[in-house]
């Protein structure tokens, strides 16, 4: 079973990222759970969302404590949130940042494997808004292969309707541009 934690700010689409990941996994015939950090949320405040993906039925309702994968939708969160908390040594962090892997490791003091992409720029240029949820899914797919872009297509279409195509473009561009540490 794979566990993923998404870090975002209220309104940025972290919860949507989690939902789309789970829906894509279910589309592939897998089992999945997606859930927000339950409770009231404020626009702009740091929020988390969680996903579990498994080939077998998932039999746990615990919170996610040690995610194998972490997705950081907003680079400013690195200063105020311990995005590495609970991540095992072989876990991976997928971060929206303009920095390179080396710069990010040095500046943010991260010790796990990293994948980086400038999702903010991609989102602004493709979607005209700095909402990086679908963009970061492209990065997650590149870095981990936990779901496929094909499986994501249906859920994105359903969620975004007329702007689905643009979101898939942003996702694909992020997939191309994401740099994954070896």
């Amino acid at each position, binding site marked *: 079973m794979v566990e993923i934690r998404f870090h975002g700010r209220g309104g940025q689409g972290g919860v949507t990222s989690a939902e789309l990941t*789970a829906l894509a996994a279910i589309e592939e015939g897998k089992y999945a759970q*997606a859930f927000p950090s*339950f409770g009231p949320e404020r626009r702009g405040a740091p929020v988390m969302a969680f996903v579990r993906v498994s080939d077998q039925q998932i039999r*746990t*309702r615990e919170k996610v404590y040690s995610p194998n994968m972490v997705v950081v939708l907003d680079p400013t969160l690195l200063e105020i949130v311990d995005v590495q908390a609970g991540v095992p040594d072989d876990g991976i962090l997928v971060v929206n940042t303009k920095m390179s892997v080396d710069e990010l490791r040095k500046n943010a003091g991260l010790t796990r494997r990293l994948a980086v992409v400038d999702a903010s720029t991609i989102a602004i240029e493709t979607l005209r808004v700095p909402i990086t949820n679908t963009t970061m899914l492209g990065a997650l797919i590149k870095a981990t292969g936990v779901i496929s872009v094909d499986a994501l297509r249906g859920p994105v279409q359903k969620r975004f309707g007329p702007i689905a195509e643009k979101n898939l473009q942003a996702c694909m561009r992020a997939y191309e541009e994401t740099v994954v540490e070896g």
Partner: protein
Amino acid sequence: MGKRVGMEVSIAAAEVVGLCDVDVIAAYPITPQTHIVEHLSELVADGHLDAEFIPVESEHSAMSTCVGSAAAGARTFTSTSSQGYALMAEICYIASSMRLPIVMAVANRALSAPINIWNDHADMMMARDTGWIQTVAENGQEVVDLILHAFRVAEDHRVLLPVMVNLDGFTLSHMIEPIILPDKEEVDRYLPPYKPKLRLDPQNPMTFGPVGMPEVYTEAKKAQDEAVKESKAVIVEAWQEFEKQFGRSYKPVETYKAEDAETLLLTMGSISETAMTAVDKMRADGQKVGLAHLRLWRPFPAEELVDAVKGAKALAVVDRALSLSGGCGPVCVEVKSTLFDRGLSPYVQNFLAGLGGRDVTVEDFETMVAKVGDGLAKGLPMGYEIVNARE
């Protein structure tokens, strides 16, 4: 054949209510039940569901509306949670005493104060003595299945009682997971149209809810108690029919790796799934541990409980609501009185866990099992503890 979809559990709950051809929905939104009511409102507004959606100004009015609607012979649904249930409670007694087959989904949540919107079982325990049938879901699929089952049981002329389907707030209500939604034809095959036995009709006037003097109140309650007890046979029968048609099995008390278990965890609701994972882990370590989990809370399945736990030396009973200063939590009260009445006396410890959204982890279950083993070995007194309360 139904279709497998990824869906938020609340949305799936609303979808299945729609498939059940409900006539009237009267509900007031409250966290964490909101998405169920919102989606039903959408279904009606968009013309996908031909029903009356009555937006009321409180839960008290919601249940009052449901009483009127069900008495008039309409298939009626509502949903609430926590404080909303508390406000509704007065009318809930009336609904069950008047034998009205209302179905209600409750997204279980703690009761204030302090204000808390998260999951525990305080609301369903407040409903314990109202005379409603109560079933409990552990995952999204079960929420869908139990709502469908609830209408069939409630409207059966051998039952005619309201049914409350409990789903853990947030933990289930806000979870996206795979769910098999039945198709309309399957639902119609399982759930016959509602034929009221008695109903309000100007052409054939009747008095619903008359005064019951001291000379008759006792008899009225005796009749109601018998009705609730006798409903169990119909509940089980409807589950057997469900299994035949849909292939998914439900029982009043279900077990997991319990056959040769010396210590049994006893749970209710979505933490049961986490408990299964804990059992797997402890079994892998060679411990003879199993799980019994309650699917049916009211009528209380005493005989089934005895069958499930009679081989165990020790029980770790988990409660998710307090009976402040009582001997133990409400589930454990039932367990002890059921077993002790029948001469069974395993070692029972009661753990009050998962209050107001506190997570219950695999590790917590391991600790409970260890404590019960220790207590049994050392002959420590039985009792209860509030798990993980910081000193």
